[in-house]
């Protein structure tokens, strides 16, 4: 007997609903095994990861702060993936957005520039992120170069460019030679929602982005085009939809959102530009997009969950000396289970007898 895959007659709605939960369950089982191998008490570790951050107000705010860039980037990526365009360079678009927005903050530092500074930073960051994402999109549409590889290569370039700026022209002269710009002026800082707290205006922007994406996908022709081009390219061609135009559009939108997320992170929780402003948000957002089933509301929930693992990972490191890399392993395993469980929406397992007659090839 042999286990084989068989295509379902139609996609299973039940499994589509439970598959993310099943994936999280399987991931937790795997993590228990991993914690045991590392010689840590699995129950205590799970508590530190998933329960402890939910029990105090500071951590709850911190989860929302971490979820903000994840959700914004993932919404953009989901539009790309729905249209079958593979933008995996969101990390680079995030960094370029952060750099472009910081340019205004650095140039206006110490001047009496008014309230226009922050809005200008946000707009410029989004524009820069969109332009940076257009490089792989145009290389793909005009020359047929793989957008996967070019967008990824640009992550390294953006990283080095940021590094050059904060070590060179933009370095804080009073920063004891640390590679960082000076702390941004109050007019160049994202305002907090609660005085003395962590939660900032960026989280509201992220919620607006989720709402806008939900409307775009469910209620507009463009949203329909994006879904058709990805799901049924042939039908889309007959319908007169232009796949290349959608690649350009979805890359630009996702780049803009990643750039916006970048400047919000820098002008918000971080407060200045420095290397290492992102613990891999651009890559974790890929997991968020898939865990959220490329659906805006799903992405919001998935973003909060992944943010929980970041905070939980930090707490587990402090409380139980569990290495931070466990969080990355956790996220990788989670993505595997999500993809595997999603496969069961379209396919089912079937037992077949293995002694079937296999015809031999000619020769």
């Amino acid at each position, binding site marked *: 007997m042999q286990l084989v895959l068989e295509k379902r007659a139609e996609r299973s709605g039940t499994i589509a609903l439970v598959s993310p939960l099943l994936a999280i369950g399987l991931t937790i089982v795997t993590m228990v095994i991993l914690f045991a191998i590392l010689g840590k008490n699995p129950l205590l570790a799970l508590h530190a990861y998933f329960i402890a951050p939910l029990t105090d107000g500071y951590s709850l705010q911190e989860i929302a702060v971490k979820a903000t860039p994840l959700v914004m980037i993932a919404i953009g990526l989901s539009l790309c993936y729905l249209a079958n365009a593979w933008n995996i360079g969101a990390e680079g678009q995030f960094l370029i957005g952060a750099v472009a927005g910081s340019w205004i903050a650095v140039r206006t530092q110490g001047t009496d520039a008014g309230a226009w500074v922050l809005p200008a930073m946000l707009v410029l960051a989004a524009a820069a992120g969109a332009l940076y994402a257009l490089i792989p999109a145009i290389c793909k549409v005009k020359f047929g170069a793989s957008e996967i590889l070019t967008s990824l290569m640009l992550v390294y370039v953006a990283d080095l460019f940021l590094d050059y700026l904060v070590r060179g022209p933009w370095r804080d002269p009073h920063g004891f030679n640390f590679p960082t710009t000076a702390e941004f002026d109050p007019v160049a800082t994202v305002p907090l929602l609660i005085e003395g707290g962590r939660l900032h205006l960026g989280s509201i922007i992220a919620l607006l982005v989720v709402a806008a994406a939900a409307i775009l996908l469910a209620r507009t022709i463009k949203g329909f085009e994006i879904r058709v081009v990805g799901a049924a390219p042939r039908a889309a061609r007959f319908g007169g939809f232009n796949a290349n135009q959608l690649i350009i559009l979805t890359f630009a939108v996702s780049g803009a959102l990643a750039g916006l997320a970048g400047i919000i992170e820098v002008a918000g929780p971080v407060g200045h530009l420095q290397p290492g402003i992102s613990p891999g948000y651009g890559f974790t957002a890929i997991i968020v997009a898939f865990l959220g089933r490329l659906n805006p509301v799903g992405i919001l929930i998935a973003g909060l969950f992944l943010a929980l693992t970041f905070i939980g990972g930090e707490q587990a490191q402090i409380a139980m000396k569990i290495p931070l*890399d466990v969080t*990355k392993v956790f996220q*990788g395993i989670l993505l595997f289970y999500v993809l595997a469980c999603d496969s069961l929406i379209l396919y089912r397992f079937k037992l077949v007898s293995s002694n079937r007659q296999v015809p031999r090839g000619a020769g």
Partner: protein
Amino acid sequence: MELVEAIILAVLAASTPLLIAATGELVTERSGVLNLGVEGMMIVGAACGFAGAWLTGSIFIGALFGIVAGTMMSLIFALMALGLAVNQVATGLALTILGVGLSGLIGARFVGERITPAVHLSIPGLTDIPLVGRVLFGEDAFVYVSIALVVGVWWFLYRTRAGLILRACGDNHVSAHALGYPVLRIRTFAVMFGGACAGLAGAYLPLAYTPFFIPGMTAGRGWIALALVVFSSWRPGRLVVGAYLFGAVTILQLHAQGWGVGIPSQFMSALPYLATIIVLVMLSRARSGGSTAPAALGTVFVPDR
């Protein structure tokens, strides 16, 4: 003269991991599977390779550890992409994310440790020949293995029946299946070969290139290897040219930084990545007539009974 020799040696050393990883991926892609997880398999190979060498004191065992680790990683990919018919692009990304985390976890306790790097061949008389002696007869074993690997893969793909069947799976899995070839099993072996090569390429870095392990030491080499496969038009011969060209760009920028050219080092470090983009664009453009990629590359195959 001395400088020319030193540069050639450095280029060979920088090219070898690219060549090994790209050769493995070329076989995988020729069977019709796009495994984007090369970077992840390489970095786990680097961590496990260093662990093996540090624990046993043997470079050979370290390299074996790297190969086994890369193969295990590729088996996860095969299970997902071939067994469960999951999208190959997404699975490959997941493999890289997982690999980066795993290598950090495995390698954490080895950061700061040193090993004796792989010895270089030394044949009295031959190795001492000026200019070419050390280039031809004074390399470490990995360099010779990488050359043997490319020649072997070329011979396998174009001169054996098994290679022909593998290419058939990559060009038209439905026909290959109709002829009775076990497409998924063949692809699994191709994926495993790719994983083994990526693991070996990763292990090369801490075993021969630098005698210590740092997290993230592959620095995108797995992705450049993927681009090299495109550059080579899926042909082993052109892969050698591509790998050495990229090694040369890497060494050139390092030397330029050393000579104090008035360009910030970060711009020079960005050169290999920018070169990859430019090459991809120029090649794809030159090929606008028709694609040379295996026709079934990256497509899901679920055999009907």
